[in-house]
């Protein structure tokens, strides 16, 4: 992170540039508090990551940062080094819960949720239990039992893979709708000016699998790849040829 550069600057107040859902502003009329940044686990890497809870709307958001070398902001009459742009985008809390369910599954028994979501390093994980939608969606990834009106859950890999497959398909639809170029033939496709029709379905699925894999542990990602019957990726592409010549050819229609 670029924060090392300017943190110690006595003259500087660190300014964070954020993009937030615009409905936060309206929802905020009703609340004095309830928007908070907390550290929770990154379910892919297992390290800490930053999330934003909207306790009023009972939603979880993931914070991602756009960071490119050699950028800075002018913000009104000030300069802010780093040029970071933060995004708060909705996060399906089930990805986080999955981390805890898989961990708890090592004990191999049905457990109540409040015994599953336990974390000494990221104690704020208990906030997940305050999300009402979460319990309703648990059946996608667990077997459940009800004893004396108390629910007990156990991770089910089979159900999880089916759930993830649906995630992949809805991501594929979004990739197509947003004209994201996913294929290995990006260059030749651009020559024809119609890359969408040249991208194969398999390329979309592989790409979506990659995006989803950022939210699940490696073993599950490998399992999902098999479940989707994705072949082993082919050899990586050689580097694209010299950019200016290619661009002239490509775009000088």
């Amino acid at each position, binding site marked *: *992170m670029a924060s090392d*550069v300017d*943190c110690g600057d006595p*003259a*500087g107040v*660190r*300014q*964070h*540039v954020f*993009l937030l*859902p615009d409905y*936060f502003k309206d*929802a*905020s*009329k009703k*609340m*004095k508090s309830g928007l*908070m*940044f907390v*550290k929770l686990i990154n379910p892919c890497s297992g390290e*800490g*990551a*930053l999330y*934003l809870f909207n306790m009023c709307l009972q939603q979880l958001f*993931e914070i*991602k*940062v*756009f960071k*490119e070398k*050699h950028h800075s902001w*002018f*913000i*009104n009459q*000030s*300069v*802010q*080094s780093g040029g*970071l742009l*933060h995004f708060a*985008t909705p996060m*399906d809390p089930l*990805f986080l819960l999955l981390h805890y369910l898989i961990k708890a599954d090592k004990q191999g028994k049905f457990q109540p949720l409040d015994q599953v979501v336990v974390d000494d390093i990221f104690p704020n994980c208990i906030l997940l239990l305050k999300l009402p939608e979460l319990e309703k*969606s648990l059946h*996608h990834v667990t077997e459940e039992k009800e004893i004396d009106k108390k629910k007990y859950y156990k991770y089910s890999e089979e159900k999880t893979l089916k759930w993830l497959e*649906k*995630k992949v398909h*809805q*991501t594929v639809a*979004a*990739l197509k709708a*947003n004209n*994201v*170029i*996913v294929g290995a033939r990006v260059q030749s496709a*651009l020559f024809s000016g119609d890359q969408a029709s040249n991208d194969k379905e398999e390329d979309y699925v592989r790409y979506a699998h990659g995006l989803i894999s*950022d939210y699940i542990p490696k073993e599950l990602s490998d399992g999902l790849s098999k479940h989707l019957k994705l072949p082993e990726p082919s050899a990586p592409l050689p580097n*694209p040829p010299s*950019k200016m010549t290619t*661009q002239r050819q490509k*775009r000088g229609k």
Partner: protein
Amino acid sequence: MRLRDTARALQTTLPIRACAVAPASRHALRALPASFGFCLERRMMESSDETAVERQRVHLRPDSLRDAAPVTLHLLPCEVLASRPAPVEQFFTPAIRQGPDGEALAAAAPGSLRALTGLHVSFRGRSLRGEEVAVPPGLEGYVMVAEGEGDGPRRQDFSGGRKDGGAEELELLERDFDRFIGATGRFRRFTLWGLETAPGPDAKVHGALAWPRLAAAIHAQVPED
């Protein structure tokens, strides 16, 4: 991103592979690690009070989102190694010119979100070219500042005097080691600058701005069987 405009596309110097949009999510765009730059948080970490740090919540003041005044943002293609007040309106803003190619582009793509292109300015003697970039629909831009930064000696207790009339909800959510952040400005667009050439549709920041639409699909609830 689509190459809407041959003229502008020819100006770009970004590598071809940047055309594939969503790699932004894996390259330039990343999950924010826990070392998110709230400076004080890191200082506390260094002072070995790790338990407090891990439990810490940073509250965003909701009323500040409503009250934030419009702010003018420029994203520069260079690293200025300082964060401090700067006379932007005195030196930078008055030097911005709209170039002739900008007018041609605006005519070629009327009503485009990036209609205002072909901006020129110079910074430290280098020529910059810029374009207006709109915040994607459904989002709003904010500049946020953590409370207690830049206002003299840093206090250790950030809850003192901050509690809001004893609102019960607030008490439940706030704890002694919690911190606060507030929006100081809000924006719907910013000016993106490139060195010598306009950033163009292949600029990585455009790829990043497509991320919220993909994120919505990845994280939407799946249909039932």
